[in-house]
């Protein structure tokens, strides 16, 4: 079980969180001007990297805040965490893996 460094509550066990998948997925700003391809790319396609993954976590059994974690998907080591949602500029701070 991972230990997720919630930027608001400190390190907490994974069971308190939900993982919200890849961060940085942009919902097209003007859906009406967006092609079917662009729209379904937003809906379905994912980077799914073997390496560092920026992903959203939600502290559901805690502060209920969303934040972004950078985690290596092979070692599962957590490299950084930023305290804002995906639209804000991430303030990355080192976190203990």
């Amino acid at each position, binding site marked *: *079980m*991972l230990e997720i460094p919630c930027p608001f509550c400190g390190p907490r066990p*994974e*069971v308190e969180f*939900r*993982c919200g*998948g*890849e961060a940085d997925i942009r919902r097209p700003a003007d859906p009406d001007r967006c092609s*079917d*391809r662009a729209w*379904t*790319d937003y*809906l*379905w*396609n*994912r*980077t*799914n*990297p*073997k390496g560092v*993954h920026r*992903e959203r976590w939600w502290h559901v059994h805690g502060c209920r805040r969303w934040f972004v974690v950078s*985690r290596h*998907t*092979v*070692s*599962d080591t957590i490299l950084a965490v930023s305290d804002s949602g995906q639209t804000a500029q991430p303030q990355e701070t080192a976190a203990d893996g």
Partner: protein
Amino acid sequence: MRRGRYSFAALVRHALSGHRRWPPAWRRREPKRAYDVVIVGGGGHGLATAYYLAAEHGVRDVAVVEKGWIGGGNTGRNTTIIRSNYLHPESIALYDHALRLWPTLSLELDFNIMFSDRGVMMLAHDLHDERILKRHIHANRLLGVDNRWLSPAEAKAFCPPLNIDPRARYPVLGAALQERGGVARHDAVAWGYARAADRLGVHILEGIEVKAIRRRGDRVLGVETDRGVIAAGRIGVVVAGHSSVVLGTAGLRLPIESFPLQALVSEPVKPVFPCVVMSNRVHAYISQSDKGELVIGAGTDQYVSYSQRGGIQVIRHNLEAILELFPIFARLRLMRQWAGIVDVTPDRSPIIGPTPIRGLYVNAGWGTGGFKATPGSGHLFAWTLAHEEPHPIVAPFGLDRFESGRLIDESAAAAVAH
């Protein structure tokens, strides 16, 4: 009789020479510079594809390129459940195509893959479950696929350890039984296909890693490996757990995320569990292996990972559910836990067929349930590679369905991994 054919008589004969004269099940080969077809990934699906290409389409200049050892991915890490009682007609056709190949596979491959049609029973714990399972039964039967409804007492008769106490937290209201479903010996499936393919001239290249797909424009040229370039005009990528990584080298973005899927076994005990039982509601499935271990699985972990590990809390919750259904297993002990990497698509259906790059074909996204499809997937993918167009059964499963919106959503009914 071909040399090295397996049989009881052959066992007796080889016993006289201390079994020192068995030929290799598959040979070690040096990679050639080019093949007609290169299959990337030596799991069950890839090996089956190569076998059927050679056996049914006369395409024998085939290499299966495997970065590790064959059958070392999800083929060797799953809970081996085989069934075809899916919901949508497209899925039923696909999975039943596989299920029809299983019973004679041992004979066809000359390798006992121990397919055991002991029956797969899916439990209903509330009226909603009952409605969904019955919808499956209706849909299956219409397509000639067996599936029937059992009362709690009938379910108990079919699986004596099952707790059908109506006061249980999740009482058993009934079950859907597919009698043709069952299990098989997963490793043997890989080995059996490898051996049969090898005999038809297919090169099985273990320990060679594909680093990139080579293309020129929209046409595929071959694969770059750690042992040099291997050219091929047709390439089938069948690398469950690494589909995004391998196809990413060809510039493709996929509707796939890779999650850990865990499973566990108990220590071996004498026969106590005669069938396969699944419960979507409590997220658990269980059977007993021929060696005697209870083989138990659950849903995926929640985060993308290529580590082949997951969190113990998933196992713990899984066992809570198992003890709820089978309280007599409480004192049995967890002997080993492990995980595979499953490529999950948004609609929980696989992606099979051509890609925007000519000559490059994909077979991926089987999620948590790919093992059951192994023979069918290989059979249909071989057809697709041989004809350079999708077989009618796999045509609805193309990558293009995500753009058109024509998804085949099995997730409504498959909240649990299996």
